[in-house]
Each structure stands twice: as C-alpha cells, then as structure tokens.
C-alpha cells in the first residue's frame, strides 16, 4: 500500500523534475529574452512542485531519503517520469509542443488531485493548479501562433506534434500502481483525464490549424523506469556535481 503510494508520488515528482531540467537547458538560449524568462519561470514552478513531491515521497518511504538524495543519487532506471518529458528541446516548436501536451495533462491531473483522499497531494495540487493554468495559457497560445503562423512555423510545429505523439499514450495508460491508488481515492482517474485532455488538445490544435495524429499504442514505459536514450546524458549532467562532491552545498 504505502509502496504503491511512494511510486505514485515519485512518478508525479519526476515528471516535474525532468521537465524542469530540460527547460533549464534553455536558459540563456531562448529565442528572445522574453521567452527565455517565460520558460525559466515555468521551469522554476515545475522545480517547486518537484521538490514538494520528492520530499513527500521520501517521507512515505521512511528511509531518510530527502528531495536531494532522490534527485541526485538515483540511477537511470529508478526515475519514473513519463518518457515524453525527457525528450530533447529540439527547436522552439518542439519545446512548446512538449510543454503544451504536458501542461494539458497536468491541468487534468491537478484539477482532480485537489479532491484526492491524500491531504498532502491536495495541498500540492492546489498550488500547482494555479501555476499550471498559466503554463497552459502560455504554451497553448504559442501552439496557435506557430500553427496558424507562417508556412514554416506551421510545418515545424506539425512535425513536433508528429514526433512527440507516440509518447502521449503513456500518460493515460494505467498500470497496477495507478489502479491501486485510484481505488483508495488517491490517484486521478486516467480515463477521465484522457477525456478532458482530448477536449483541450483538439480545441487548440484546430484553432492552430494543426492535424491531430492517429492515436498510437503505448510503446514507452518511462514511468516504470524504461526510458528513451535521452534520459541518461541528461541525468549525467544534472547529477554530476553531487556525485563528484557528495553533499556539497553553496
């Protein structure tokens, strides 16, 4: 029971941690100063959510692991983020599409977790929901602007959607952990989430004159630790300092 809860919370934490790290790579490299700051703000919000969730996961586990030990001293296979969030930034269109797909997912997620039977998750979700509402507004507006922009921006953002679409199915594919957590009223119902997500995504894509790709069967199980080739190099960079100088502070 508590084991499933630990895994469930860790999955949510890692989704935020890994996406925040990806967005962090863009700091100083954004296409414009304003976007640089916009993406950094989102990264910081996600990092804040990750910290709360990692801390909570450590407490559930009860083995003395903190947010830092969980972030910096776990191995590749112990990270449980959905595969989508570890995908590379690509061009700005791909960064935005990835963000949009995740934001729409987190809106559905946090919008339901505020009614969870887990009081800690309720608190975290309430804070995260406000942040996510802004993230979604930001990324959805960009998807529309790029999709309904120039022929080049349209093609690029469509390509980004086609590239990232295979990773979407995993977000809503329940496994035993999800089922157990849903049964005790902790987790959000993934089927309901998918329906809500579909509405948002369809609306934005049609406004952006973009095509929704065919649904595909899930092929990725990042949330079980089976990751794409992109996670490893990223973790190496993220964990390097703490692994070289364990416990270093500044």
């Amino acid at each position, binding site marked *: 029971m508590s084991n499933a809860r630990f895994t469930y919370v860790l999955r949510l934490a890692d989704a935020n941690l890994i996406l925040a790290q990806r967005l962090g790579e863009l700091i100083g490299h954004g296409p*414009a*100063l*304003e976007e640089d*700051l*916009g993406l950094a*703000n989102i990264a910081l919000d996600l990092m804040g959510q990750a910290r709360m969730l990692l801390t909570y996961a450590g407490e559930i586990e009860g083995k003395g692991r903190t947010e830092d030990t969980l972030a910096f001293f776990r191995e590749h296979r112990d990270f449980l983020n959905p595969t989508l969030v570890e995908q590379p930034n690509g061009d700005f269109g791909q960064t935005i599409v990835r963000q949009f797909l995740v934001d729409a997912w987190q809106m559905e997620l946090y919008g339901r977790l505020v009614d969870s039977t887990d009081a800690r998750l309720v608190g975290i979700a309430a804070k995260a929901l406000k942040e996510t509402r*802004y993230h979604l*507004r*930001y990324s959805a*507006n960009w998807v529309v*602007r790029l999709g309904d922009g120039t022929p080049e921006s349209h093609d690029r953002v469509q390509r980004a959607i086609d590239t990232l679409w295979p990773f979407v199915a995993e977000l809503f594919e329940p496994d035993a952990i999800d089922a157990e957590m849903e049964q005790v009223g902790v987790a959000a119902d993934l089927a309901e989430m998918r329906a809500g997500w579909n509405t948002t995504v369809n609306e934005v894509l049609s406004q952006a004159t973009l095509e929704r790709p065919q649904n595909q069967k899930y092929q990725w199980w990042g949330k079980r630790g089976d990751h794409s080739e992109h996670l490893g190099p990223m973790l190496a960079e993220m964990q390097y300092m703490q692994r070289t100088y364990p416990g270093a502070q500044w």
Partner: protein
Amino acid sequence: MSDSREWPLYEIFIRARGGLDHKHVGSIHAVDATQAIEHARDVYTRRQEGVSIWAVKSTDIIASDPADADAFFEPARDKAYRHPTFYEIPDEVKTL
C-alpha cells in the same frame, strides 16, 4: 524602420497594489497584445511587483520633443508661488 521580423515594442505599466497608480516599469517585445501581457508578467512581476498590468504599444505613445524642453518647462522654473508652500497649516491637521 526596424526589421519587420522584429517583434513590436510595448511599454509596460504595473500597479503595485490596489489603489495605487500603474507605473511605467519598462518595455518588452511581443508579437501581439495577448503576448505582451504574458511577457510583461514573466519579465516584470517575478518578484511580486504587481497586481495589474497595462501594455501600450510604444508607437501609440505621443511624446514631447526634447528640443521643446526649454519652451515647455523653463517658464515654470521661476514661478515658485505655484507650489502650495505658502499656506499655514493649522495644528489640527495631522496628516497632510
């Protein structure tokens, strides 16, 4: 003229708290009005600077010409009597 690929410039005004004026804080580039507000939020309200944002296209601001400064502002310089500093304030008035 500037490169047409460059985003238009907007002037940003922030209201720090309810009841205060919107104050000019700087400018940002944005592709449209919606994004101007978002960029202003991201750039200028990261440290809780405000509760409300105005964005105005920089090209919509009509400014006085610095060359007119003498004609515009010099004549006021020697008219100190326009300042309300010659009134005696009654002791009963505490908060002025």
